[in-house]
């Protein structure tokens, strides 16, 4: 059923055991993003080191989709160069806008492909993108320092 396409085991797993949750005290940039339609919130800290993402930590409240998505994103981005991370980000945004027609490249998105089903539910795409947009904002802010 459609619902199972949305709530993949990987998503529920990240939701129950979120990665990199809990803000670290030192960071280059901190951002706070909200989803005004449902009240979900994410605060995200990022540190860069020589063009690479040294650390991402986050905290927030939200549905399983938003929480799993930021967990998956953090896992993916940490250790990557900002340039590679941009490719991952664009690939994820493209997947979310695919209206269920794309399945995502597992080489690039890894656990992120589990989010493919979200793109069939227009009301949930914002949930999935909340953490990723926070990342985009944070990396821009940290890079401009």
């Amino acid at each position, binding site marked *: *059923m*459609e*619902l199972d396409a*949305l*709530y993949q085991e990987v998503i*529920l797993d990240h939701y129950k055991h979120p990665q990199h949750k809990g803000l670290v005290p030192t960071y280059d940039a901190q951002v706070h993003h909200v989803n005004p*339609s*449902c*009240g*979900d*919130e994410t605060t995200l800290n990022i540190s860069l080191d020589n063009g690479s993402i040294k650390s991402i930590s986050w905290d927030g*409240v*939200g*549905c*399983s*989709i*938003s929480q799993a998505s930021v967990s998956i994103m953090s896992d993916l981005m940490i250790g990557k160069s900002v340039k590679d991370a941009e490719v991952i980000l664009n690939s994820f945004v493209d997947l979310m806008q695919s209206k269920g027609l794309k399945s995502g490249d597992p080489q690039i998105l890894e656990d992120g492909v589990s989010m493919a089903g979200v793109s069939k*539910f227009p009301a*949930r795409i914002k*949930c999935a993108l909340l953490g990723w947009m926070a990342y985009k904002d944070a990396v821009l802010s940290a890079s401009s320092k």
Partner: protein
Amino acid sequence: MSQLDVAAIRKDFPIFTRTIRDGKKLVYLDSGATSQKPQSVIDAEVDFYSRSNAAAHRGAHQLAEEATEAVEAAREIVANFLGGESDEIVFTKSATESLNLLAYSYTSLITAEDRIVVTEMEHHANLIPWQQLAQRTGATLSWFEVTPEGRLDLSNIDNVITENTKIVSITHQSNVLGTINPLDAIVARAHEVGAVVILDACQSVPHMPINVTELNIDYLAFSGHKAIGPTGVGVLWGRSELLEMLPPFLFGGSMIETVTMTDATWAPAPRKFEAGVPNMAQIVGLGAALNYLSKIGMNNIHLHEIELGSYLLAQLSAIEGLQVVGPVDMQNRGGTISFTFGDIHPHDLGQYLDAQGIAVRTGHHCAWPLTRKLGVAATTRASLYFYNDKDDVDALVSGIIGAKKYFGRE
């Protein structure tokens, strides 16, 4: 049991013939957001466009006359429905616009010494316009707090509504908690200090008998689409002497008396507040909607919702881990019930219920300060109307239990 023949009523609403998510029966529990429409309302709009369409209040031809008559007949229906006079009924595009109209029109009448009073349980539509009015004028915005049980705390009423208070704008029934606010003490205190009382009646006019004269209020706003009427039409009722005194908000065609190159004077109310060609088909549709509601009987609707709400509250209370947010008995409460359910986020619960054909609302319900005060990021809300029955409640309850199994899987 209820006097209403819900099965017969549902036959009047064409949307109940469709199915949801692969053939599931539609269980519509989101009437607090917008209500469904009976065929008679849809027909009224179609008939207007098919037979009588022309610009009301303008033109010397038969169609213009018929369009004008149709709009004015609807005004009469609204006036009778609320217990007011026809010239006290202003048509707007929404309740939001009605409240903004008041907040803008009062700009020149409010000073930095004045106070504006709202409550913590306001929908954003009855909060932000007053925040902005306070910011424009330097006036102080103050409010009644909400108790943990979801009731207004009126213990400090004389300190909230002071001698300087000019406007008290409150919701009649909370769109989140279902709480019906007691008005007598608030109206008495407001009038004692010379303030006007504005009632956001979006969640009460569609659900219970309302008489503005008996309530002794000064203004009332409600939206058509929550009262089985079309979208794009709202109502502002105001006491005629207040509407006469109040400056207009939107300027343009048909709201004037005379115009020169440098100045203009205004038509009498309600026309002074209705610039531009009105949303005629929607106004006519609203008239049909209120006629339909009157035929069913507002008291019957209210009793039906109390009975069904009582059943829903009892069923919800029996679910382990479920917490009702708002009053837990039907005393001064309508059939809008919000809740949280263990660690299942409302958005996830709503998605699961949707897969069963059950439509609920999730989130902060445009009342963010309220949900923040109550310490919940979001809730799930089921809002009942007269076309709902026990089967709908049972479907919701088994859906909630199903969600626990679904999201609890390891």
